[in-house]
Every structure is written in structure tokens, then in C-alpha cells.
């Protein structure tokens, strides 16, 4: 608001130049990235097949109800796990805090379907835990109660365990960037630590927490591997069943389009509900002191963090490690290192691309907060809620169309065939990753920007800095934590990404996720363990590196 008023006060020529400088590339980029999403939404205008009647009469209600329950459960689960771990590591001090500060990020590196496979291996009726119980007590099938892992509840647990780091990461940055003065004001006004948490710290961290939860929920909606394996009829099951089983790609795209509209509505609602709220504060940027937990409180904090780590990472990783050891002898190491190289390079490229575009869009919105800019950024970041295979189709169609048009023109006028220039190349693949994961970096960057007071921009601008210089010299240093987080999240997401890679990749190009999934989907879990473990280990590297960047300022302050 304040920026808008000020911009109007500028001389017209300068304003329009500034507008062109940011708005044109911003809207163009957003437009291009929105194409695949628009291709999917466009399916709604192509007529509805009779299959819809069948879906409405039989299974659709089931899909919708299950997906809503799944979202509700994962929302609660990621909030509980993510906020607990963020609050403990950011605002408290207890034995092992420094370790948990990065270790609690690890579950993020495990693909959801992999954790689902490992827990099924451990907890299923035929698995070691239940078999041991039966042997110990002489029970048979039906003699005892044991929660079924392959169920809606099981899917909620699995997804919450690997998705809570989104909330953790974003909330942690938000907590650390809150000023001590605000929290101390709360305490000196008579609020206890818990009241301060729920009435001051959490509401102030709302953009970050909402960003984290919405990322987790979008990924939940896009998940197919876990729900398919657990036999949960979620909305994605419906999309793929309609496509594969009924052979109706268009109806499947229409289902995906409704999913997109639903997510878009949620975004609008959230945005509307906080339209008058601002989340920056005016006090000096001094980090809050930590609440020191001693004695049994410290032990409890350590136990809670330890339990989250155990369930989300250690148990599945140990199971994977055991399987990987069983198959170590059959491994072709040179082929394996090529897999590692291609996965790493691809993830790094996509993470960098997403970050640049997120900065362009996020900062553009800050410079020109208008409805067009807002919606452009919003729509271009919708891809995260769509199953990767559907996004891949949305990328495939316009790319192939463009290539074939160029080829047709060249044949017509110059009698040469250019073939497919971009389809089936890594360019198309990286573009698809940007479409799919832009939301992750954009939300992270935006929630970081939201915590910087607009008056800082104003002061800098009034001192003669151009917008780009403001971004470079003022925002980027202040956003260091958020930027590292954005890079890290996309990197790990791409490392795990499967369906888009599978369908858009060039010939003979493999990644760790492709290898892990092919083996796992053939039910060869033990063989899939090594590539899955490698995803986890490579994911570890940036987690540690960037955590150092994100938390670099900590030691001087403590």
C-alpha cells in the first residue's frame, strides 16, 4: 500500500520506465510458466464425455471425501510436527539442539512412496513386528488389533512425516527473524511463554506457516505413489484411473483442472482472510534470546525431537540401509555414479532457475502490487498441486506443438526438417520442473519479503537506489536464510521428482528417482533401496551446507 502511494508521487516518466523494467519480464515469465497449467484448465472448455456421468454416479464422491480427509490429516500432522520442531530449535535451548537444528530436516529427502514402502515392510501383517507379536503370544489372524498401515490414516502419517520439514523450515526462519523486542514486550505485559507463542509469535509467523502448510498440502494433493500403494482412493487415484483405466486423457485433465480450481480458491480465501494484516515489525532486528530448557524439560524436548527424527528418518533409513547392504554385491558402481551425477546436476539447475524466477516474480509483486501481478504470480505457481504426470502432459503438448509448427514452416519454406528442437531435451525437463516447483521457491521468497518493512524500500529508493539495486544491496542480504531455504527445497524436490522426469527425459537419461521407482514399482524393494538411499544422502549435502548459510548468523548472536 505504502509503496503504491509513493510510486504515484514519482514523475510519470520514471514510473513507467520502472514499470517496464520489472513488469514486462515479470508478466512474460509468469505467462510462459502458466502455459502448462492453462493447457490443463483449457480442457474444461472441450466438452465433457459421458464418462463423467459414470464417475459422478460411482466413485467421484469417494475420491473427493478421501482427498479432503487426507488434506485435513496432513495439515494437522505437518503443523504439529513442524511447529514443534521449529519452536524448539529456534526459540529454546536444550541438549542436542544444534544437532536437531539440521537433523530434523532429513525426512524431507525421503520420497513419500519410499517411506510408505519401508513402513509397510516393517508394520504390515506379514512384516517383522506383527510376526514377532504373533509368535510371542501365539495369536493368529483376527485375534488381535493392530492399526493397518495401508489405510487413510497410514497415508496421513507417511505424508506428514516427510512433509513437515516445509513447515519446520519456513516457520524456523520466521521465528528467528522475529525481533526480541516484540517478544519481550509480550512477556513484560504479563504473557507467559506459551501465551507469547500462541498470541504473538505464531500470528506474526503466519505467512511463513501458511506457506509451509500449503506446500505440504499441495504436495499431498499431487501425491500418487503413496495413495496408490495404500489403496486409498484419493483424487489423484481418480485422475490416473480415468486416464489409464478408462483411456480418457481429456476427462483426466478435466479432473486435474477442477483440482487446480479448488487449490486456487483456497489461495484466494487465505489471501482474503489476511488482506489487512501486515507481518513486519518496526523494532531493530535483534534476535530473540532462547528459552533455556533444563532438567526434565530439556530431556523432554530432546525426546520429542528425537522421536520425530526417529520416525521420519532413522527407521526408514535403517531399513533402506539394511536392504541396500543385502544387494551391495550386485551394484554396478560406475553406472551408479553416473546416476548420481545426472540427478545432482539436474536438481541444481532446476533449483537455480526456480530461485531466479521466484525473485523476479516475488519482487515484481512487491514493486507493483496490482491484481494482475498477484494473479499472474499465483497462476504460474499452481503447478505444485498437480500430479507430475499431468504437468508433464501440459508441458509435452505445447512444446511438441511449437516444435512441429516450426518444423512445418521450415519444411514449407526451406524444404528442411528441423524435427523436434526442444521436446525430449533437458530444456523441456527443467522447464517442467520450474512449472511444478516454482511455488516452493516463490512462497519461500514471498514470505521472506513480507517480513521486510516497506519503509526500508522507501528509504533506499528515496536515497536514489534503483529497484534492482535495492534488491541486490538490501533485500538479498536480509533474505539470505529464505533464499537458501528456497534453493534447498527445490533441490531436494527435484532429486525426488519422478513422473515428470520419467515422461519428458531424453533417451538413455536416468536419475536416481527413476531408478528407485522402477525397481520399487516392480515390487523389488530391496533393489530399490540403494538409489533411494542415495537420494537421501545427496539430499543431506545441501541440507547441511545451506543450513550453515541459513543459520550462519547464529553463533555471533548467542
Amino acid at each position: 500500500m505504502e509503496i503504491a502511494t509513493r510510486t504515484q508521487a514519482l514523475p510519470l516518466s520514471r514510473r513507467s520506465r520502472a514499470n517496464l523494467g520489472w513488469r514486462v519480464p515479470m508478466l512474460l515469465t509468469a505467462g510462459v510458466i502458466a502455459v502448462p497449467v492453462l493447457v490443463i484448465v483449457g480442457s474444461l472448455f472441450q466438452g465433457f464425455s459421458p464418462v463423467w456421468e459414470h464417475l459422478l454416479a460411482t466413485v467421484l464422491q469417494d475420491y473427493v471425501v478421501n482427498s479432503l480427509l487426507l488434506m485435513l490429516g496432513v495439515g494437522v500432522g505437518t503443523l504439529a510436527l513442524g511447529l514443534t520442531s521449529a519452536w524448539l530449535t529456534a526459540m529454546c535451548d536444550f541438549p542436542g539442539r544444534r544437532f536437531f537444528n539440521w537433523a530434523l530436516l532429513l525426512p524431507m529427502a525421503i520420497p513419500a512412496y519410499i517411506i510408505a514402502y519401508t513402513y509397510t515392510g516393517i508394520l504390515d501383517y506379514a512384516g517383522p513386528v506383527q510376526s514377532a507379536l504373533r509368535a510371542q503370544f501365539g495369536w493368529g489372524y483376527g485375534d488381535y488389533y493392530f492399526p493397518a498401515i495401508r489405510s487413510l490414516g497410514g497415508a496421513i502419517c507417511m505424508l506428514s512425516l516427510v512433509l513437515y520439514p516445509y513447515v519446520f523450515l519456513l516457520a524456523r526462519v520466521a521465528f528467528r527473524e522475529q525481533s526480541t523486542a516484540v517478544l519481550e514486550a509480550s512477556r513484560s505485559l504479563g504473557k507467559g511463554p506459551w501465551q507469547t507463542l500462541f498470541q504473538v509469535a505464531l500470528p506474526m509467523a503466519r505467512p511463513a506457516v501458511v506457506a509451509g502448510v500449503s506446500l505440504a498440502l499441495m504436495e499431498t494433493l499431487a501425491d500418487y505413489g503413496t495413495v496408490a500403494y495404500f489403496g486409498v482412493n484419493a483424487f489423484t487415484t481418480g485422475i490416473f484411473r480415468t486416464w489409464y483405466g478408462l483411456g480418457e486423457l481429456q476427462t483426466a485433465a478435466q479432473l486435474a483442472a477442477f483440482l487446480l480450481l479448488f487449490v486456487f480458491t483456497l489461495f484466494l480465501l487465505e489471501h482474503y482472510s489476511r488482506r489487512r494484516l501486515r507481518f513486519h515489525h518496526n523494532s531493530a532486528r535483534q534476535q530473540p534470546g532462547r528459552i533455556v530448557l533444563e532438567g526434565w524439560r530439556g530431556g523432554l524436548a530432546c525426546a520429542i525431537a528425537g522421536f520425530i527424527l526417529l520416525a521420519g528418518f532413522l527407521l526408514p533409513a535403517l531399513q533402506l540401509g539394511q536392504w541396500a547392504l543385502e544387494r551391495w554385491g550386485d551394484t554396478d558402481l560406475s553406472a551408479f555414479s553416473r546416476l548420481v551425477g545426472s540427478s545432482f546436476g539436474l536438481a541444481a539447475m532446476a533449483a537455480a532457475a526456480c530461485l531466479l524466477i521466484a525473485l523476479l516474480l516475488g519482487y515484481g509483486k512487491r514493486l507493483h502490487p496490482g491484481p494482475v501481478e498477484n494473479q499472474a504470480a499465483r497462476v504460474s505457481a499452481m503447478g505444485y498441486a498437480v500430479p507430475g504426470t499431468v504437468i508433464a502432459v501440459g508441458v509435452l503438448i505445447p512444446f511438441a506443438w511449437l516444435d512441429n509448427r516450426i518444423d512445418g514452416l521450415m519444411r514449407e519454406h526451406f524444404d528442411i526438417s528441423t524435427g523436434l528442437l526442444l521436446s525430449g531435451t533437458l530444456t523441456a525437463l527443467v522447464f517442467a520442473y520450474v512449472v511444478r516447483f516454482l511455488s516452493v521457491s516463490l512462497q519461500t521468497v514471498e514470505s521472506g519479503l513480507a517480513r521486510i518493512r516497506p519503509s526500508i524500500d522507501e528509504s533506499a529508493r528515496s536515497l536514489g537506489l534503483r529497484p534492482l539495486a535495492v534488491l541486490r544491496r538490501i533485500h538479498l542480504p536480509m533474505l539470505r536464510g529464505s533464499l537458501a531455504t528456497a534453493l534447498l527445497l527445490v533441490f531436494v524436490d527435484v532429486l525426488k521428482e519422478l513422473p515428470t522426469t520419467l515422461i519428458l527425459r531424453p533417451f538413455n537419461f536416468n536419475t536416481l528417482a527413476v531408478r528407485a521407482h522402477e525397481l520399487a514399482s516392480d515390487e523389488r524393494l530391496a533393489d530399490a533401496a540403494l538409489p533411494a538411499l542415495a537420494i537421501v544422502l545427496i539430499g543431506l549435502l545441501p541440507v547441511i551446507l545451506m543450513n550453515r548459510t541459513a543459520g550462519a548468523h547464529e553463533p555471533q548472536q548467542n
Partner: protein
Amino acid sequence: MRFPSPVLRRVTAVLASALLATSALASEVNVYSARQEALIKPILDRFTEESGIKVNLITGGGDALLTRLRSEGRNSPADMLLTVDAGRLYRAREADVLQPLHSDFLKKVVPANLRDSEDYWYGLSVRARVIAYNRERVKPEELSTYEALTDPSWKGRLCIRSSGNIYNQSLVAGMIATEGADAAASWAKGIVANFARPPQGGDRDQIKAVAAGQCDVALVNSYYYGAMLQSGGEEEAAANKVALFFPNQDGRGTHVNVSGAGITRAATHVAEAKALIEFLAGEEAQHWYAERNNEYPVREDIEPSKRLQSWGEFESDSVDVTDLGRLNAEAVMIMDRANWK
């Protein structure tokens, strides 16, 4: 920015070269394969050794590959489409992305019901959908047909995976083709009524559940059982508690589906693709399918592996596998209406 190591520089160079399309070599063939790399690469390597033709591979889901093939149109680099069920080949032909392949050799060795009637594609290996039963709790005499599993005496004793699985869809499609839609619908209802648990997991999970006693019988693909027996460890122990039964031997025969291949309409390496398909129907490859993947050879003149033979001989359903593709959507709707999750 400086690259910290030559390794990273090399990786970057490789990635950069793949960022743009590169031109085609002469003696090669490009394959879109729904069969996973681990299950096809070794035999493709053998083909390259023998023929000198390089095979380039992209693996993925059958429908996703088909969509890619369709949108790439006449410029598609793919010469050949390889799928793991007849239904996808049927769809590929319907989508007009295949061209006929006239090969006297293939027509001679591949049975007529396991290939396209106008030579657009050929089956290459056979997988059977069979009954797996717990050796201790079920006597083979109690088993007879798929239909008999709907008897109330099997209530709460049957495991089967979800109806989203293509092999269940094919099974029902085959039933529609031979027995009619009404019979298939009442069969699906009867099966659902006898579920021991809601459908979940894959075929190996069904076999494990039978071994652990959660259910007594399951409908599974034969090669998963074979793979478990080969795996060593817990899975092998579980498989040893289970035996296979080939249903409907006195009637239409056990349901089978095929993996198969066809040449794309956009193919630029037609001769190479033809050579590869003929190689896959050749003796060496047919033996390899059986030994390595526990699938049945598509050719009647080639013996299955020792392991497959030990499960007994069986009559397979002679329904034209093209019908499985044609009736797939109807089968899914029938299962939806039967509330088969």
C-alpha cells in the same frame, strides 16, 4: 563462478550437450518402453552385440509414453513402442501412431490371438493371472475356476489388489469378451463380497498375505511368484508356503495377457526396429524372458524354463488379446459399480 572440480565440469558439459536435441546416428533404434529398464536392458544389449545396432531407450508408463508419441506426431524420434499389456498396444493403434509390420517370421511364431490381426503389433511374452493358495489351508481340489472364487465359502478368504491394476482390468475385460458383461459384473460383485481386506499393495503383497494367513487365496500374476522364489530371504520363504493353481482348465482356460511391440508411424529406423522385434521373438530372447523374468514364451515351439515347467502345464484362454484393450474401459466401469476399490 569457478567450478570446484573437473568432475562437476564434466557433469555440466554432459548436461549442456543434452539441453538441445542432437542429430541421429545411422545404425540405431529408438525405443519407448513401458517395460522397465532393468527388465529389458540386458536383452537389448545382447541385440546390440549381435547386430551392431545401438538401442536408445526411454522407459515410462504406457499411457504417458503413448501421449508423448501422439503429441510428438510425425517428428517423434521413437521407432518402436514396447508395452507390458495388449491394451496399450490396442490404444496405440487406435491413436494411429503405429504402422503395420509385415514379417513372415513373426506371423509364423506368434499365435494369432496374441498379435494384431492386421500386423500393427505382436505379443512377445505371456503372463498368466493365476490363483495363489496357502499350501496348509487350501487343498488344490477345492479350487477350480475364477468363477468359483465368488462362492460364499470363500467369504473373507480372498486377497486381490485394487481394480486400478491393469491385470485385474484385463481379467475382467477377458471375462466380458467370453462370458458377457452381465456375467463379468456379477463376478466382480461376488469377488468384492469375499475380500479378506480392502485391496492394497502389489501382487507380491497378496502372496505374502496368503503366506502369513491373512487370506487363503489370491489372484496374482505368475511371474511375481517366480521372482519371489528367486529372491532369497524372507520373500522366498513366504513364496514357499504358497502354491499356484491354473484356473478354468476345463473351460476357456487361464487368463493371459502379453507384453508386445509395434513400429511407430513416425519411425525413421524401420529396418532396425523390425530386426529388434524379430530378435525379441527369437529363441534366445524367448528363453531369456522365461529364465530371467519368469514369463512364458509367446512361441509354442519354445519350452518354458524349468521353474515354470515345475508349476505344471496349462491351457490359456484363447480370447483375442485385442479384445482386452477394446473392453478395458467397460471393465473398469464394471469394477467401479461393484465397488471394487
